[in-house]
């Protein structure tokens, strides 16, 4: 076993996934990493490939997918693992929190059974130990042990999502994949769940890959942000930099089109058109057709990620990054 301290918890390199019946890869050269104890947000609209990217960490890929590249969890390649290794991975090292907790839980099983089973079925923990751990985690997420005996139908959506978070932490994972964990929740509940995730991360040192469509939420909670568009990483970098000085026109347009409390009333700066269809082949930059900066080169040559001047970790895949000045929120 290689030492893990200098390795990324999750390291995705050049991930390219093609599905049958599509003209272009669903993921096209995705590079992404999550350091130990780091919170990373993966932002994109529906169909951008953000969910598929996060699921690749558990090798949860649709049938018929053709995969190139590497997905490593603590240095071990997930894509070449066999079924037993994957099961060990998903019960121990990597866990998932889903968007809709109600859909992810069997309504006829008690919450306690659900929590305990996730670790006892693999034999990694005895039932008594697992119950003790479940109680500890339920307390950590602000519930008490009476929740163990309840059925999913007896608790609210916000509470259920806290149960899911507790379940995700049962195996003491190094990485939690949270796929839109607050989208189905009310805003005030969302804040509570986010606060909880932040606290738990600090306490248990878990890496968090937070998949969301909400750029503001991503910026508010994460250390680094990746913005995906049409299966590629459009921009990545520290949350504040990306929010204040976006270097990809798509990020800038997303920020400008979000209805915001602070912005002046009136029309929003909407992005015309739609994301490219999977049935069409992509040449050049995928955003070119909707981009106001696009020139001839954008339709011809796909841009490579380039670092911002003086900020090597802030990268954007755009030929015209330097023409974007200031924040679109200020500009409006």
């Amino acid at each position, binding site marked *: 076993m290689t030492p893990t301290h200098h390795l990324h918890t999750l390291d995705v390199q050049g991930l390219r996934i093609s599905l049958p019946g599509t003209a272009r890869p669903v993921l096209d050269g995705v590079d992404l990493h999550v350091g130990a104890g780091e919170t990373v947000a993966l932002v994109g609209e529906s169909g951008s490939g953000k969910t598929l990217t996060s699921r690749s960490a558990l090798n949860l890929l649709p049938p018929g997918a053709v995969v190139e590249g590497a997905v490593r969890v603590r240095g071990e390649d997930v894509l070449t693992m066999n079924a037993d290794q994957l099961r060990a991975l998903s019960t121990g090292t990597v866990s998932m929190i889903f968007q809709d907790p109600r859909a992810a839980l069997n309504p006829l099983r008690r919450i306690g059974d659900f929590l305990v089973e996730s670790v006892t079925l693999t034999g990694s923990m005895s039932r008594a130990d697992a119950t003790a751990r479940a109680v500890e985690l339920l307390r950590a997420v602000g519930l008490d042990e009476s929740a163990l005996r309840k059925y999913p139908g007896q608790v609210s959506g916000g509470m259920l999502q806290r149960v899911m978070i507790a379940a995700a932490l049962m195996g003491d994972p190094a990485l939690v994949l949270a796929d839109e964990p607050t989208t189905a929740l009310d*805003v*005030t509940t969302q804040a*509570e769940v986010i606060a909880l995730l932040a606290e738990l991360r600090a306490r248990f040192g878990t890496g968090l890959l937070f998949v969301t469509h909400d750029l*503001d939420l991503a*910026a508010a*909670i994460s250390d680094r942000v990746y913005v995906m568009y049409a299966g590629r990483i459009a921009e990545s970098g520290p949350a504040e930099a990306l929010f204040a000085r976006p270097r990809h026109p798509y990020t800038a347009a997303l920020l400008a089109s979000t209805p915001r*409390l602070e912005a002046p009333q009136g*029309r929003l700066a909407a992005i015309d058109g*739609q994301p490219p269809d999977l049935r069409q082949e992509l040449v050049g930059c995928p955003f070119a057709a909707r981009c106001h900066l696009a020139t001839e080169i954008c339709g011809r040559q796909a841009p490579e990620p380039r670092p911002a001047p003086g900020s090597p970790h802030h990268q954007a895949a755009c030929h015209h990054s330097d023409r974007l000045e200031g924040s679109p929120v200020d500009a409006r």
Partner: protein
Amino acid sequence: MPDNVLEAVGLHRAYGSVRAVDDVSFTLPEGGSLGIVGESGSGKTTTARIIVGLEQADAGDVLVRGQARGARRRGRAARLARAREVQMVFQDPLLSLDPRASVEQVLRETLSLHFPDADHDRRVRELLDQVGLGTRAADARPRQLSGGQRQRVAIARALAVEPAVLVLDEAVAALDVSVQAQILNLLADIREETRIGYLFITHDLGVVRCVTDDVIVMRRGRVVEAGPTAEVLAAPRHPYTRLLLESVPRPGWDPEAIAAARRAL
């Protein structure tokens, strides 16, 4: 009061012991836009369904241009008149359209119900144009359209009836941000052109700020705050409104303080 296109007076609706809607009143001026904000369980959707007539209020009245909406009148003419008072756009455009009907069929069906003698070809083109859909989309079925396009179809279908008020129940919540902005702009344009009144049901305060003149905030079936949108958002008086505002993610956002405030409330 003839200059109010829609008025709700003391609406009540209970399911068993749960008071889903508890003494809700509001007015929507002609050509105005009123937001109803609240979280799940606040009663905002039940209020909307009472307004359009999908639910009956236990008590209270809904007035359109000063006339009570006769919920119990039967017969074709009364039904059509009721439909021309209030129309609705639903949250999920895919589910709110018949999966088998093409865009053109959807519009034609509505037109032939309400305006059997009009020139339907011309009107279908007008409507598609009004919501920014090309005539190429006319033959498509809902499944072949994108989320934004589907919601445009649903808006066109509601506009085909030429209603006085359009109720939008989380009409942009299921859309991606970039598409959501397109639809919000479209709705603003339509209101400018037609002076139609909007009742905007939403949980998203950013959306409220963007498209409404006035807003009411609902919690557990009751109206906790009401007023002009700009005022309510700038200087909320009720602690719940403050909590809602603070809960919106932004840079420097402190979820823990919000969680504490929520527990305190």
